[in-house]
């Protein structure tokens, strides 16, 4: 054989070996295929500070309460609690009955490797873990200053070489095996929401003691699923199987009008699918292709693929022909451009108003959100009490004439005398494009902006260190209450707290403090609206958008709806394998 033939033979052989070697999945398996667009940090509930970790943790761990899966507005219902708590008349004492017969998953940490029954003391331990300063929880803010004696316990133990979990906390007691009592230091109307958040999920002391620092890689909860591998190796494919000791928990039989079509599985034992595979896919292109090939059961449409997927707010024939279903859901969030109030320049309200007036939000919506978002008038998003659907911010642009006039009133006619302002952003392509648009908008009135792009962690560090002038940011709800948005402008929450713009207005602080102590009532709603109007009129931030989620689901996926706060939705999802087999023929 001559040399040329030899080379050709090698190349041909290589291709033959490679080609056609895709892995085929058994179509009869009831498997849910999902994706996570970010790596998760691990399975420690106290560090479920990001959406992605919260979703994974909620497959294994559970809390006292959860949001009803089929009710909107968000409604709290008991989960590990047997019923909603008894609350004292002063709103300070909450007494819960724990559901009996709930078992922790089997693990070597328990005697004989068999999981034991969940007790009230497990919640006492879990809340103390959240408060333990040595564990540096991301979720301490939820209960900081809220439970009587907990801050004192935290401070005292932070000085000790080892945390004493046996020391009692006045406001956190296991009255008996199934009775748990919280006593608050002051009224905190959002307290019950915090008990539905992953931060307060129940963990067992035996497991925490056995695995120590590696606890986050050895999840052992009471939830519907457990890791197939038993431990988490920080892999990019996370596989869950049904927890064989999961208690009796049924699919809900009641639903809000908009979810009446999701009741086909009412009364069935949860979880509904045997296996859940989560593919960690940071890049959107392969995930989108995987979804289009039927290998993912739902996926948010990536920005760059929006034009090929949606025409006139409807699915393109190509995708609808495959049976895909589009769901459009408003998100509980706000995107904004912040001013750093530590810089005296931005204490000039007319400067802020002029800049806001010069900005064309409609054009921004068209360019960067495919016209899918709602221009924000203030900080509280639609769907949360405190948002005023008919309210129009008088300073929202574009109104160039008024912007120029207001800038002159600010002392900078045509931008004269105004120094160049730096605008910090994260260095993603979209952020850069948005920043360029912002620069052009400001140029129209003579305000000069210099873009400073940094990788996300570095950008966040600059914001937290107050070393920015203006910056682009977004906030998603931790719980469905306006307080969670209004606290972004509360003085004592300044950076490195959540108040990234370091706004500190005594009048606003006073109103906020009053609202924060009020139970849900028409008076509180009125006060929330006043606060919302106050920050709108003063253009404390440049409120940009309230975004919407455009999610596609496959025809064989059942019971799915998009939600910000149903972290544990996977247990309610179902797969119709017959429909899947039929639909895949069209792919």
């Amino acid at each position, binding site marked *: 054989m001559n040399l040329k033939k030899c080379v050709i033979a090698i190349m041909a052989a290589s291709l033959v070996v*490679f080609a056609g070697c895709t892995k085929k999945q058994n179509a009869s398996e009831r498997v849910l295929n999902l994706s996570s667009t970010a790596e998760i940090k691990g399975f420690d509930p106290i560090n479920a500070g990001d959406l992605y970790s919260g979703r994974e943790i909620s497959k294994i761990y559970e809390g006292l309460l959860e949001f009803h899966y089929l009710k909107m507005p968000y409604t709290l219902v008991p989960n590990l609690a047997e019923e909603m708590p008894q609350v004292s008349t002063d709103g300070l004492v909450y007494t819960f009955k724990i559901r009996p017969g709930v078992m922790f998953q089997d693990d070597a940490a328990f005697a004989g490797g068999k999981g034991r029954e969940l007790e009230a003391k497990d919640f006492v331990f879990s809340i103390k873990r959240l408060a333990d300063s040595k564990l540096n929880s991301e979720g301490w803010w939820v209960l900081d200053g809220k439970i009587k004696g907990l801050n004192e316990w935290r401070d005292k133990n932070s000085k000790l070489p080892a945390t004493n979990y046996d020391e009692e906390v006045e406001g956190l007691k296991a009255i008996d095996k199934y009775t748990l009592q919280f006593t608050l230091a002051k009224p905190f109307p959002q307290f019950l929401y915090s008990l539905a958040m992953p931060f307060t999920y129940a963990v067992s002391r035996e497991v925490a003691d056995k695995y120590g620092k590696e606890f986050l890689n050895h999840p052992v909860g009471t939830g519907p699923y457990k890791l197939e591998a038993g431990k988490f190796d*920080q892999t*990019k494919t996370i596989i869950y199987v049904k927890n064989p000791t999961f208690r009796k928990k049924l699919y809900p039989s009641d639903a809000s009008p908009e979810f009446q079509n999701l009741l086909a599985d009412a009364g069935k034992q949860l979880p509904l699918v045997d296996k859940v595979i989560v593919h960690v896919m940071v890049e959107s292109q392969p995930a989108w292709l995987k979804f289009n090939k039927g290998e993912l059961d739902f996926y948010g449409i990536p920005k760059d693929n929006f034009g090929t997927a949606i025409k006139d707010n409807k699915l393109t024939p190509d995708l609808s022909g495959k049976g895909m279903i589009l769901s459009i859901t408003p998100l509980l969030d706000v995107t904004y451009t912040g001013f750093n109030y530590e810089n005296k320049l931005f204490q000039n309200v007319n400067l802020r108003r002029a800049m806001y007036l010069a900005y064309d939000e409609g054009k921004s919506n068209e360019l960067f959100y495919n016209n899918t978002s709602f221009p924000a008038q203030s900080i509280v998003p639609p769907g949360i009490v405190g948002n005023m659907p008919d309210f129009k911010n008088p300073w929202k642009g574009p109104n160039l004439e008024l912007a120029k006039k207001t800038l002159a009133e600010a002392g900078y006619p045509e931008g004269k005398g105004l120094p160049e302002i730096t605008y910090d952003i994260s260095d993603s392509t979209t952020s850069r494009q948005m920043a360029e648009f912002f620069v052009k908008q400001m140029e129209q009135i003579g305000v000069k902006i210099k873009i400073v792009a940094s990788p996300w962690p*570095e950008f966040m560090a600059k914001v937290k260190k107050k070393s920015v002038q203006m910056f682009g940011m977004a906030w998603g709800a931790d719980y469905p209450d306006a307080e969670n948005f209004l606290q972004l402008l509360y003085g004592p929450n300044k950076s490195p707290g959540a108040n990234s713009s370091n706004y500190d207005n005594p009048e606003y602080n006073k109103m906020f403090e009053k609202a924060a102590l009020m139970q849900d009532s028409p008076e509180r709603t009125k006060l929330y609206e006043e606060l919302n109007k106050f920050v709108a009129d003063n253009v404390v931030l440049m409120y940009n958008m309230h975004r919407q989620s455009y999610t596609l689901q496959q025809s064989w996926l059942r019971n799915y709806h998009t939600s910000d706060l149903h972290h544990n939705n996977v247990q309610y999802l179902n797969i119709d394998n017959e429909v899947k087999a039929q639909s895949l023929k069209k792919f």
Partner: protein
Amino acid sequence: MNIWLYIIRKVVNMIPTLLGVCLIVFVLFNLVAPDPALLLLGKHGTVEQIAQIHRELGLDRPFWAQYFDIVKSAFTWDFGYSWSSKQEIWQMIKNGAFPSMAITVPAFILTNAIAISISLLVSFYRGKMLDKSVVFVCVAMMSIPGLAYILFGQYFFAYKLGLFEIAGYEPGFPNFVPYVLLPIVLYLIMNIGPDVRYYRTAVLDEIYQDYVRTARAKGLTEKKILFKHVLKNAMIPILTYLIIQIPFLVLGGILTESFFSIPGLGGLTIKAINTSDFPVIKAMTILSAVAFMVFNLLTDVLYTLVDPRAKLK
């Protein structure tokens, strides 16, 4: 010089280099990297919590003490635990090394075998149409960015033709095989251009040497000259090129691993950079530097084996 003496001298010379690498890592981390406490605490971090994390991670200690820790790690190879995942770093490296190498090792062997074969072929037909065409194709392939190959490969070969998995990874043999095939093919496509050009140049450099003319004068066939004499003499640049690539095989491909969701060391490094996970950054940098120096030394030693005329000084 005795080969062992040479090796000892080179190993001793590695010490200041390693100290320099430690210093660069330390300076860069302190100057450029964001505060890990802010990343670990998320959006609600307090001043008190930040200080606590600084204490716990040892970031409140004097600079010299922090630098000493890095140097200690470099010489004991005890890198401790990840700040972010709390896993032992050696375990993380062990977990990530196989997926990375499952792509890079077969791709490396295949690419180089094909590239060397093609370079010999075109050298045999140097100046002819085949040679010019191959060079043209190589240059064209080199002009296309790696990302374009990945996006096209995923779309066309995996999505449209269904020949490969689009992305993902399953541990264990043979589960991982379907997931690494397309990355291997793309590695080959991305690297074959520069490799063929390099090897062709190495072979052509030899072809114009006096000994080739002598061989021709003696009446040896072109094939014999090429395989028996030229290839042997071209082995020094070829070996250098090959061996120097080996450390990078373990480190994996950052872009490839990211787009194919492969849990390899490239992804591990990027994740560590994004989360300011300094122990992982430190471990990966030190191991890379050591591997680079060791393989450089190995190249020098191999020279003497391939070409007895080469002397170690």
